[in-house]
């Protein structure tokens, strides 16, 4: 087979494409870079401005309000542990990175999901791209990301967005499509416009599913923090990475534990946001 078909030069094509992007869209990329940098740094500064004990109590109260006592207690103890181990500032940096990535995922992912839910053709284009984003090893797009966005937190954010956005899109599509056909018929029969149908019926009914997607996106973004640290993103990931490269098993475990604690807190909080507005069964 190799004899009659020479090797396809996909590698060369990609190289050419990336070079073309870096030379021609340089202004756009540096614009994105400075905005993202400002957002993440602003967030870190904002978090850092709050005294750690105030931050702990605040988050505990939020956990109590949204979820329950157990989760509130876990939040308090977990955050205290992180502070005690001396990972408070890296934790804030990680939080800023993850939140930035997730906010971008939501801002892009939900509109894309809505669009795809309404149009079969969009769905057909988007689905393979989502598969690609989720399965292509992160290292592969980390390298070009450095070209576009320099070393630092920004390529980390971009890689996290690419990796974490698919669940938000997928579950937005799913949630909207799951709205029962007869309910859609009813809204049509009363003369709703497309946007009324979307805003008053489909999105509210899809909300729990969309929240599940956002929850997954947060988890995936957190799972990227170590990889992000390889291109220079600061935070708990950097501590883990350093510990691993210096074979400091205990330190690595501590930093890893801090990530787990943050992951559990964020997971439980977002899981319960979707459920806090519940009423009866479905009709």
């Amino acid at each position, binding site marked *: 087979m190799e004899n009659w078909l020479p090797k396809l030069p996909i590698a060369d094509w990609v190289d050419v494409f990336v070079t073309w992007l870096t030379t021609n869209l340089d202004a756009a990329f540096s614009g994105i870079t400075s905005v993202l940098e400002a957002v993440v740094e602003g967030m870190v500064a904002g978090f850092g401005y709050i005294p750690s004990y105030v931050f702990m109590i605040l988050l505990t109260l939020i956990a109590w309000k949204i979820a329950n006592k157990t989760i509130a207690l876990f939040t308090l103890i977990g955050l205290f542990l992180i502070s005690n181990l001396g990972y408070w500032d890296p934790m804030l940096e990680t939080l800023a990175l993850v939140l930035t990535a997730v906010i971008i995922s939501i801002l892009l992912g939900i509109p894309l999901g809505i669009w795809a839910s309404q149009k079969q053709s969009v769905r057909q284009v988007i689905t393979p791209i989502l598969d690609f984003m989720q399965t292509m090893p992160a290292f592969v797009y980390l390298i070009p990301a450095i070209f576009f966005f320099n070393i630092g937190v920004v390529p980390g954010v971009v890689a996290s967005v690419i990796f974490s956005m698919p669940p938000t899109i997928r579950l937005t599509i799913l949630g909207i499509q799951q709205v029962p056909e007869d309910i859609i018929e009813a809204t049509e029969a*009363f*003369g709703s*416009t497309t946007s009324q149908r979307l805003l008053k019926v489909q999105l509210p009914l899809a909300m729990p599913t969309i929240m599940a997607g956002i929850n997954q996106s947060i988890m995936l973004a957190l799972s990227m923090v170590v990889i992000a640290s390889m291109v220079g993103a600061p935070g708990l990931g950097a501590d883990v990475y350093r510990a691993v490269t210096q074979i400091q098993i205990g330190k690595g475990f501590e930093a890893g534990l801090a990530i787990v604690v943050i992951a559990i807190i964020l997971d439980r909080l977002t899981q319960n946001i979707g459920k806090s507005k519940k*009423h*009866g069964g479905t*009709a």
Partner: protein
Amino acid sequence: MKKIEVRNVTKVFGKSKKAIQLLRDGESKQTILKKTGATVGVNQANFSVEAGEIFVIMGLSGSGKSTLVRMLNRLIDPTIGEVLIDGQDIVKMNKEQLREVRRKKISMVFQKFALLPHRTVLENTEYGLEIQGVPKDTRTQKAMDALNLVGLEGYENQYPGQLSGGMQQRVGLARALANDADILLMDEAFSALDPLIRKDMQDELLELQAKMKKTIVFITHDLDEALRIGDRIALMKDGSIVQIGTAEEILMNPSNDYVERFVEDVDLSKVLTAGHVMKRAESVSIEKGPRVALKNMKELGISSIYVVDKKKTLLGAITAADAKYALERGEKLAGILQQDVPTVLPDTLLTDLFEKVSTATIPVSVVDENRRLLGILVRGAVIGALAGNNIDLNTITDVKTEVAAGKLERTNQGDVPAVSAQAKPFNGDNFSSTLDQRSKGSLPDNTIKLNFSGRMNEINDTPNSDREVN
């Protein structure tokens, strides 16, 4: 006034071009599916619905009822044909015009309620007005009025999931009523409810209809429901309308085997009324003397007779024995009048008058609201009608059976009066033959509760039953 007019409407799911051609050639749904792979949803339907009418579309599962009703507000686009709402063809309308029609003229109630689970009962009811941009105060007021109409006051802040099926469908009905559209489409609206609730809802719908005079297109696969609430009924089979008519027309003159099979098990006692089976009442004016009354009774061979005034208002009855007594004493009719006589209104269902008919010692009288004597119920005729004897029914005038023709060219011309039946009014009842039929078991047992005890001999129902029974 014609509120809805459906002309030659056809829906083909799948590749339609070839299928339409085959339909024109009169091919069946099955053949078309085999030849083209396309499913015929509705085949060349023609009918119109008058303002204020309850028009029932009935048929077995898959016969195309839902498809047809959804073409009335274009939730499904017809493949060909016209749907005129107030004379305007909605098939030709653009999106905005269609939306206006859906908002202002047509509401719909769904089989599985289709309520919005994230909204309260009130918010659900308000939905139609909300999307029209009606101010909050006004729409809340209208929604509350609608909820009161369906008996849901006090539930407005509950969520649909907290209500029973019957109550949920009331919300569905209130939602449809709130935006005050003239036309109500109801696709198997009561089918998901259990039988008792279902009957309540039917009664309530009829009550509401008496007040509101909507034009209602009601889908059902249940014949009893169709007969109970329908002013006219259209019967569908394989996408085609096979017969359109009133309940009696369909029951008494099924246009083909299919309809006949559909209606053969029906309980006639729940369809026919006193007006259908009553016979002409022999009566005597109060001004006449006992001698005239006695003569009348003798000539007719009956032992009692109703007494009326000049305006035919029922005053009471007298028996031959009393008349004789009065004659001997020289008294007037007024002196021997029995005022306590059994009466029913003409629209009383047979099922509701068995009791009266079987216990009365004289034939029950049928009177209108002003107590004017319209006729009498002769026991034999009541039973005969239940047995399906057309001959025992009064005239069904203007039986107009619209047959969905197999060819487009024919149906294009509109309604085709195909059958016109004329039963003889006030014919003598054929009591003995009815009894024969009963003994052969041709009468549905559950419908006959009349008492055949010996009292029969004492009563002279009609001139000839007297002779035959004896």
